[in-house]
């Protein structure tokens, strides 16, 4: 996108803040990956390596009162919503101070007060739920918006289609996205759908859609801003397809031998952090020394988080029995 356009449409401080979160996301996830390789994290680890611009871009475009029903490669959204690196690491380590108190692992965390729905493994299950939150906003005449999405794989689920259709029929203030990273686990896009672009799936519901460079945080941010503004203005849902590439395996145990190396080499050049740095330089908002400074700062933040998480106690076995039923729903 034209640098002049970006300079005009995105405030300098917003761009710099997004750069911070790109860095923080990568630092947190790199640390999680390292802990996983050391055998200190059990369970699955799915990262957004190379795709950080998506969650950082869309979460930055939302207002505080808006709601996010994130995807499993949306670490940036959790961080932007105030989940600290310490809490995130406590979650991965199964600690009681983690957002799900050890009841669930990895990116499966949520908090209604912070407007983040807990991720459900069953891909696309949260899309109808997100539409329902948007329904509540519309029924009460609130100008709040919901942002939710899934991968190219998840877009084959019935719930994806049921949610899009329902939102379109009722013109709900929800923005759907798909991170098209070209693979669902090992399944390439051509075996997932017989159409080249996921965005075409939105047409069936009469929903406007757009293809966006998912590696460019500024593009993601602007596309999200426009879709959110439309939703807020009562114009109904829209769909954004973020084109990107999954740079790590499906999870950290997967070497992803099924992905051609040349493809990865090609996408490495489009790394979202690299792209953001080029943009910041072009706009005169930052340069190498500054980038190093940010990298150092987030690294320290993450190390403090690791320390906090490691020193926190694990839950006690009998805590498994707590919380099956809610005693009250007054808080919401």
């Amino acid at each position, binding site marked *: 996108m034209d640098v002049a356009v970006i300079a005009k449409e995105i405030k300098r401080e917003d761009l710099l803040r997004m750069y911070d979160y790109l860095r923080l996301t990568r630092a947190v996830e790199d640390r999680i990956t390292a802990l996983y390789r050391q055998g200190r994290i059990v369970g699955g680890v799915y990262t957004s390596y190379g795709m950080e611009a998506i969650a950082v871009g869309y979460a930055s475009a939302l207002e505080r009162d808006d709601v996010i029903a994130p995807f499993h490669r949306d670490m940036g959204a959790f961080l932007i919503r105030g989940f600290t690196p310490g809490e995130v690491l406590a979650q991965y380590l199964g600690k009681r101070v983690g957002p799900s108190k050890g009841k669930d692992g990895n990116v499966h965390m949520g*908090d209604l007060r912070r407007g983040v729905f807990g991720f459900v493994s069953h891909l696309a299950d949260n899309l109808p739920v997100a539409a329902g939150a948007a329904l509540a906003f519309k*029924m009460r005449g609130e100008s709040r918006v919901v942002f939710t999405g899934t991968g190219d794989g998840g877009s084959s689920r019935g719930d994806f289609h*049921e949610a899009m259709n329902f939102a379109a*029929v009722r013109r709900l203030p929800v923005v759907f996205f798909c991170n098209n990273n070209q693979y669902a686990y090992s399944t390439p896009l051509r075996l997932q759908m017989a159409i080249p672009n996921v965005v075409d799936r939105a047409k069936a519901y009469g929903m406007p859609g757009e293809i966006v460079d998912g590696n460019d945080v500024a593009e993601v941010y602007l596309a999200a801003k426009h879709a959110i503004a439309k939703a807020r203005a009562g114009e109904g849902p829209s769909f954004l397809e973020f084109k990107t590439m999954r740079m790590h395996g499906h999870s950290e145990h997967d070497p992803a031998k099924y992905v051609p190396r040349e493809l990865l080499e090609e996408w490495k050049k489009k790394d979202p952090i690299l792209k953001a740095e080029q943009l910041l330089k072009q706009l005169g908002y930052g340069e190498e020394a500054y980038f190093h400074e940010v990298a150092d700062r987030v690294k320290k933040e993450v190390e403090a988080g690791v320390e906090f998480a490691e020193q926190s106690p694990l839950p006690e076995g009998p805590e498994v029995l707590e919380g099956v039923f809610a005693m009250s729903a*007054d808080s919401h």
Partner: protein
Amino acid sequence: MAQSTEEVSYLEAISQALDEEMARDERVFLMGEDIGMYGGAFKITEGFLQKYGEWRVLDTPLAESGFVGAAIGAAMMGLRPVVEMQFADFISCAFDQITEVAAKNHYRWGAAVPMVIRAPFGGGVHGGPFHSECPEGWFFHSPGLKLVAPSTPYDAKGLLKAAIRDPNPVIYFEHKFLYRRIKSTLPQEDFVVPLGKADVKRIGNDISVITYGAMVHLALEAAQSLAHEGIDLEVVDLRTLMPLDKETIYASVRKTSKAILLHEDNKTGGVGAEIAALLAEECFDCLDGPVIRIAPPDTPVPFSTPLEEFFLPKTSDIIAAARKLATY
């Protein structure tokens, strides 16, 4: 409490509960297929659209998973959705949303999901394999859900009101066979039947029949004919299947020392199987005979009249089982 002078059907009791809760709490709204202008397949919401408007009586697309999911989201945002399954059988399409999302959200990350799914269930109406099912067993096994199954207009109204006010996802199994067949007068005041409390519908000393839904009426019929033979049945109506009122079940069986478990859901892995196991664990010492289960065979619900009659439990099954138990 003052009683209404007119008799109210089980169906009207459900309708009254919805109407009163919608009037009492503006957060309560309805979702489902054909519930608006048409008033629902069984006409439970007839007139509601005119009274409450299209944003509180939402006709949905034909997509159970989608609208149950939407109800979950709306519930988490502070509303109190009541979803109608046109027939309980179609709840299988929403199984994933119910068991994976609604049931687990509070446990996983503390989000309460205050919603109700009304599921018209049960046979005896020649609905065949897809319109007669009793799917409670699927959900009985899924932690995080409350399940209720009223047998009378009073319970139907009071349990639905309690379900709507409960902070958890509740599946409300309303029996289609009872809709227009069972009538009674109701209190004029607001009342609820608390979730998790069974009701002894007939006090007796010899044998406990533990049951719910339409089968309660079968058990009461059997009790009446057995009374002439000097066999005194106690009929325990579970009303709520989850959480299960174990105290009332144990108290009854400790008194009678004999138990028949009766339900309309298939036998294997049903609610009765669980209660039989609980009785073996907790009441073994006081049992004077085998625990007997009366339930349909493990087949889908058939269509043709003789087949459905064969399939469904009958009063004579209860009488035979009770006579057998009486000899111990």
